[in-house]
Every structure is written in C-alpha cells, then in structure tokens.
C-alpha cells in the first residue's frame, strides 16, 4: 500500500529547504570574508542533520515507491513483478462511471466534513484549559482534569463497546427510556444514518478534550505573571485577563496544535469509523482511510486502494495550505 506524503514531512522538508537555502547563502557570502575553517565548521553542522535527512528519506520518501502498485494488477501470491502491468486502468476506473465518481465525492465529503468539524472543535480544549485554569480549588481541578483525560487512553474498540452497551437497541439508554415509558420502540442511535458526522465528532471530542487541554495548561503556566499583574493594576477583571492575556498568549500553541491535528485527523482517523461503521451508516461514515481499507483489505484489491489512497495526499496538501493561509491572515506569519 502506498504511504502518502504526510503533512509533518512536508513541513519538515520544506523547513530543511529553507534552512539549506539560508546556509547556502551564508556560505556564498562568507566565502571571501571568512577563513576556510568556517566552511569545515558548517560541514560539521551539516553532518549533524544528515541522520534526520536519512530518516525522512527512508520513512517519508521511500514509501512513495509503493505508489507503483497502483499501476499493476497486484496479486500477493504472484508478487509485484509477477503481476500484470495495467497502466492507468485503476485511475480510469475511479472516474469511469458517474456512480463511481459519486462514491468518491461522498467519501471526500465525509472526510472533509468530519475533518473540519474536528478542527472547529479544536477550540474546545483551549477554552476548557482557560476555564479550568481559573478554578481555585486545586483538588477539584485535578479531579476534573484526570476524569477528562482518561478517555484518551481508551482504544476505539472499547469506546465502541461502551457505546454499544449504552446505545444499542437493548442498551442502557433505550432500556431506561422504555421503562420510563418515553418510547415504545427502541431508538436507533448506532444503526441509522442520521447525524452521523455530528455523532462521530462528539465521540471524538469526548475522547480527546481533556488530553488536548494538557498542552494549553502547560502553556498557561508559562505566561509571564507580570502581564496579569499590570492588567489588574489597570483594572482588568477576570474575564478581561482571560480574553486579553491568556487567549492571545495561547494562540501560537493553538496554531501549531491545529496544524498537527489536521495531520492526525487524516492519518489516524480510521479506527473510530471502522468500529462504528455498519450497513446503515456506511454511506456517511466512510472516510478516505476507511474507504481505502474497505477496498484494499476487505475487498482485496490493493492496487485500486493504492490509487484511491493517493487522493489522501491531495487532501493533505490542500488542508495544509488552507491552515497556512488562515495562520497568515490571523497571525500575520505563515507556518511553513
């Protein structure tokens, strides 16, 4: 299977390029002015980054070689070069009929919709941290933080078990509602295609909001206390300091995390949808990674799956550029 370019690699490599451009410039400028010993020194510095360049090459660029699978009719038993070379057949198939295109569009729509809902929800950990920070009772603060962080360490399979025991047709919620006489037929929480995007986002928030707040709490601890003191002397209230000091001070952290969150949504967004998928919600829950998995692993066509997964690289780059533009507009500086 192809491993598409992931965003962090792009970031890292572009940074490398910037760095190497700079060092090249420095080298040119220094050639006449500086003694040769400086060149040796910069070569030494260059050597220190070589291991990382090698790592990036091995783990981020070499896997791109896997894209070649999309040009073959790959049969595992025969090996890649025992399989037939089919050129662009799989790509043609993807756009071959309106229904195929419709499916891809639907998958893209699911991916982007849930990604952006997730991104929109990424202000929640920040808000949560800001408010949590205002709590004076330390034991209560710790308790809340522990309870909200815990779900992050539960695997999605177990989350689904919890969801199933609570929300299945014979689950706790339906049982209670039936006992109370609110409903006569069980409500279908899990096996229906209504509000799937929203439901999935809510599960995601429940699982990650506490964990996400940790970094912000650390960042808050690092804010210069004199800022608060001077603000208070100027008569700022609690909400004023939160809004005018804490939040702006957290912005750099927020944007870096936002960037990482986007990369993570695209790379790790599968297990959740995989465990929650069923015949009733598949149409609206199938994200790109899951679609690739369903075609490649369940459907047994690794070549077509490779072709589809290349789409993921396209989305990755598009999202990265979108966030970068946002960052430029809000903060005046770009991230990459």
């Amino acid at each position: 299977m192809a491993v598409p370019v992931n965003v962090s690699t792009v970031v890292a490599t572009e940074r490398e390029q910037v760095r190497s451009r700079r060092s090249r410039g420095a080298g040119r400028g220094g050639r006449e002015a500086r003694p040769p010993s400086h060149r040796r020194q910069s070569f030494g510095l260059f050597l220190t980054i070589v291991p990382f360049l090698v790592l990036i090459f091995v783990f981020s660029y070499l896997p791109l070689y896997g894209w070649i699978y999309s040009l073959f009719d790959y049969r595992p038993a025969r090996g890649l070069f025992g399989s037939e070379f089919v050129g662009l057949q799989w790509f043609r198939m993807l756009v071959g009929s309106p229904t195929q295109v419709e499916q891809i569009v639907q998958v893209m729509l699911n991916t982007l919709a849930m990604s952006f809902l997730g991104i929109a929800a990424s202000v929640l950990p920040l808000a949560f941290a800001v408010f949590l920070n205002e709590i004076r009772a330390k034991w209560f603060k710790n308790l809340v933080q522990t309870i909200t962080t815990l779900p992050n360490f539960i695997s999605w399979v177990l989350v689904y078990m919890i969801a199933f025991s609570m929300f299945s047709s014979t689950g706790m919620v339906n049982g209670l509602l039936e006992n109370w006489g609110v409903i006569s037929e069980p409500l279908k929480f899990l096996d229906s295609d209504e509000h799937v995007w929203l439901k999935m986002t809510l599960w995601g928030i429940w699982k990650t909001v506490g964990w996400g707040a940790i970094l912000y709490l650390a960042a808050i601890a690092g804010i210069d206390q004199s800022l608060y003191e001077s603000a208070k002397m100027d008569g700022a209230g609690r909400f004023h300091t939160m809004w005018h000091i804490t939040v702006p001070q957290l912005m750099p952290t927020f944007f870096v995390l936002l960037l990482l969150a986007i990369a993570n949504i695209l790379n790790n967004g599968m297990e959740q949808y995989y465990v929650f998928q069923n015949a009733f919600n598949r149409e609206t829950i199938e994200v790109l990674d899951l679609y690739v998995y369903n075609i490649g692993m369940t459907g047994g066509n690794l070549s077509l799956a490779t072709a589809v997964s290349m789409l993921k690289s396209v989305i990755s780059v598009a999202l990265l550029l979108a966030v970068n533009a946002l960052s430029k507009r809000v903060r005046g500086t770009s991230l990459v």
Partner: protein
Amino acid sequence: MSRPVARRSLLAGGLSLPLLGLGLSSCSSGPGAEEGPATPFPTAWDDQATIDVFDGLANQMGEQPGWFGHLVADEFALTLNVIAPNVAGGGDTLYNTRVAAGELGDLVLTDVGQKLDELIEGGLLMDVSSLYANMDSASRFDDAVQKVNEGKDGIYAIPTQVSSLKPTEPSEGIDPTFGPFVRWDLYKEVGYPEIGTLEDLLPVLKEMQDVAPEADNGGRVYALSLFNDWDGNYMNNAKQPCCYYGYDEVGFVLAKADGSDYQSILDSDSLYVRVLQWFFDANQMGLVDPDSTTQNYDSLFSKMQGGQVLFSFWPWQGQAAYNSEANMAEGKGFMIAPLADQKIFSYGAPAFGARQVFGVGSTAEDPERVAAFLDWLYSPAGVYSNSSQTMGAAGPQGLTWELNDDGKPELTDFGRDALLGDGATVPEEWGGGSYTDGASWLNVTTVLGNDEDPETGHPFNYKMWETYQQSVSNPLTEDWAGVMGGYATTMEYLNDNDMVLVAPGASYVAPQESSEVETIRNQVKAVIVENSWKMAFASDQATFDALLKDMQETAEGLGYQTVLDVDMANAEEQNALRESVAAEFG
C-alpha cells in the same frame, strides 16, 4: 506489510532478472519434494513438532487443544497451530499478508480455482507427487485428486468432501442443508396450521410468538433473529429462503438446481427481493429481533439456545442450539414445518470433491509428516475424529462409539452424553477436558459422512446408524413423525413428497475473473448488502421501494451488468457440467 517484500524483489529484479527467476523456481520446488521417500510413512515420530495450518474454514484460532490435539500428538507427535482468517476477520487480509510474506502455512486449506492457481504459480505450495504415492487413504479417491490437479505440473491439491456416492444423490444425511425449521412445540400449540407458501409463514410465526412472548430464561422472544457476519454477495439471511425454492447463488445470479431458471437477484421480481419484502413485512408485524442489525452469529446462537428465537433458516443451526435431550424429552425443539410449494435445494454428492482443497506449504520443514497427517484425515479413523460435529462425526472409536455384538457401530454411553447430552468430560487417557471444546478445529469434512466406512460397512455419520435411529426416538420426533405421516427423517419426507431438488455434484469451479470484474463485484456487493439491511428495516413500504430503486441504480452505475454477464455464463456452464456429470454417473 506488502511493501518490504516488493522492495526486495525490486532489488533482485534490478540486480539481475535471471537471478529473480532462479529465486522463484527454487521456491516452487521446495525442500524434500523431489527426494521424497519411496518407503511408506513411518509409524512413529521422534521429535515433537508444531505445524501451522492455514484453514479458511476454521472458527477457532491457536493450538488445537483437547482430545483431538491429544490424538494428533499421539499419532504424529504434532501440535496443530490453526490459523483462521475467519477469526482474524477483515476478509482476505490475513491471507494476503501471509501470501505476500511468502509463507501461508505448513498445511493449507484453500479454494480451487484462482486462489489455488496463484499459490502454485507463486511457489507457495509444494508438489507432493512423491508423497502422494504413500497416501493410501487419500488415494482411494484418486479420480477426484487427479481431476483437481488436472493441467497442473504435479500433485498440489487434495480435494475435500470426497465420496464414493453418486453425484445425483443428496450429500446431506438425514436433514437437508436448508429448510424452514420452526419451534415444533409452539407450532403444535397453535394447531399445526398448514403453510401454503413463504408469505403464509408469517401469520403462523406471529401466532407462535404471541403464545410464548417470553422465553424460559426471561428474555423476549422473536420469531426471526438475523445476523450480519456471514454477509457476502448478499445479505446472507435473505438468500436462505431462496434455497427453499431450489435456487442457489452463482455470484449475483440465483440459479435453479435443475437449470430451468436463472434470476438476477436485483430484478424487482426476483426471489431475493421477495425475501427482502418478507423480512420487511415480518419487521412491520413485530416479528424481527431489533438486535438483528448489530448482533453476530454467536449472539444469535446463544439466543436460540435460550429459546428466544422461533425460526431457524437451517436445520443444523436450530437443532444444534436447542434440540438437547432434555428439551426433546419435553417435546421441545426445531423441526421442519414444510411450505406446501417448497422444493428444497440439495447439494448432490460432489463427484470430484468440494471447493476447498488441502495443499502442503512449500516452506514446510517436514513435508513427509504433514503428508502423513493429511492422509490420516482421509482414513476411517481420521474421518470419525476430524469431521465437524454438525456433520455427524461420531468421534474416535473406543471413546464415543464401538462395534456392538452384531458388528454394528453404536454410540457408547460416553458418546451419547458427549454428542446428544449436555456435554461430557473426556477421560484423562484421551486428553481430558470437555468433549466439545476438544473437537477438531479444522472444521473440514474430508470424506462425506454419508459415505460408507470400508471397515464397518456402515456410514461414518452416526445419525444414519440403525442403532442410533432406534435409540433416539423421543416425544419431539414422535410427534413430528405423527403429523408428517410416519417418516423417520426430514430427508425421507422431502424425497417422498417431491419437495427436494438435487443439484448434481459437479465440482464446478468458476474460471478466474479479471481484477476489474472482481473489483466491481466487491463494490456492488457492499451496495447490495447495505441496502438489503436498510430495506428489511425500512420504516414504510414507500421507503422500501425507494431503497430498492436506489440499490438497483447504484449497482447498475457501478457496472453490475458486466458482473452479471460473467455470472450468468458461469451459471450456465455449471449447469452443463451438472448435466454431463449426472449423465456419466447417474
């Protein structure tokens, strides 16, 4: 996971192509195949060994425990490490991963046709020609072995479900594979109403559900309870009633056993859509378990054991779950309640074995021992011990059964407890543990249970023994026989009333299809399964109709017609083969 392998072969290819060719050819011959022994297999083995058995039919994974494990260790000093893709889940994921790694298992159970051919081409299976010479038990069915290996450069595959029965005779023993089986005690309570056709079953089930709304275990009773983990080309449950009318699937085609009709399942008037409508109606009547959409086979089975389900699509399901000796003594259990217009599909004894075949992996360290074990599976001792219990395997002679004074096979007291009662604990010298837990995990029938054991002259299947049939009469079967006209078994009743349609066992294998067709098939499958479930649980008739239309259009758009043409041709070819086999053997 497949990447490193490919990268390796790229390097090899880049260095020198001849080298790559060399690598492949050295793979396909495999160790020990050529210098195989001409002497018979040893009777004792010194060192203990473990072999990987890749078994596409197994439902348990890990080392074979219990009495069967003990037996194999005694005979061959072998431990079987069963690798079960069914347990691992995710379709062919496990298969593809292992194949890409170049090692599927020491003993492999795979499908004839595309999979087998690819494994041979890829050098993953060994030519066992020289070992086959010593496989006395398997070579009793030499015709079938030669047929499967036709056109291949050696002996790579040993077919399963071989028999010496005529292909025009049912391969099933006393019950068909499919059939409308209901809780007979409740059917009796509502007065044995006659059932004209499939649709007439619903009001009867409704009455039965109303009579017993709650099971003994306190759970709510539903007439129908469905599950989704066996879904393939279709929603599995919805295909079963099609078999009550003599149809079986060939891809997206429903083909009648006698070749008189072929239906595209998506046609609005197809039997499949009729069954979906039937499910929908049942659900509207409150007959369908709401857990159906999320439960799997195991949870359904335990509900059946608890008496919470009143209809079984198959005899071997409901009866295995509920017809315990205790229940039957009270007259409770699953029996067939015939539909007046049924023509139940029956698989004829396969002339050349079933789809699944055994092969020996090319990386097997001790191919001789693997072959000896494989051969044992075809010997009477192996057949009795290995075959799955639902197929009527009696178990090892001396433990569960023995020859009585008249020389007829008869279950021992232990055997009756183990096979018909609530289970039994195996004596220590046989390996200990519960009998059921210790049964063979291979879940494959090597020789058909209806076939005659050459040593006793009676069938392998204990349910067909006279001694068994005389001894198991109970209030349930007596009541059933009384109503049905004195028949001893379901098969006898069906045969006499012309309610069974035997498809001659032609051992047909569909030709390899292009990856493109396969891919479209997989996409369409997903659409069909998805929409079928939605249709069965649709809120009203209009939604049902809209979903049907949506299913037809989406499938059509994905290229359904292309796949259907392939399947139609296959179905017709299969029928031609059936006719020729029937003419040859019949």
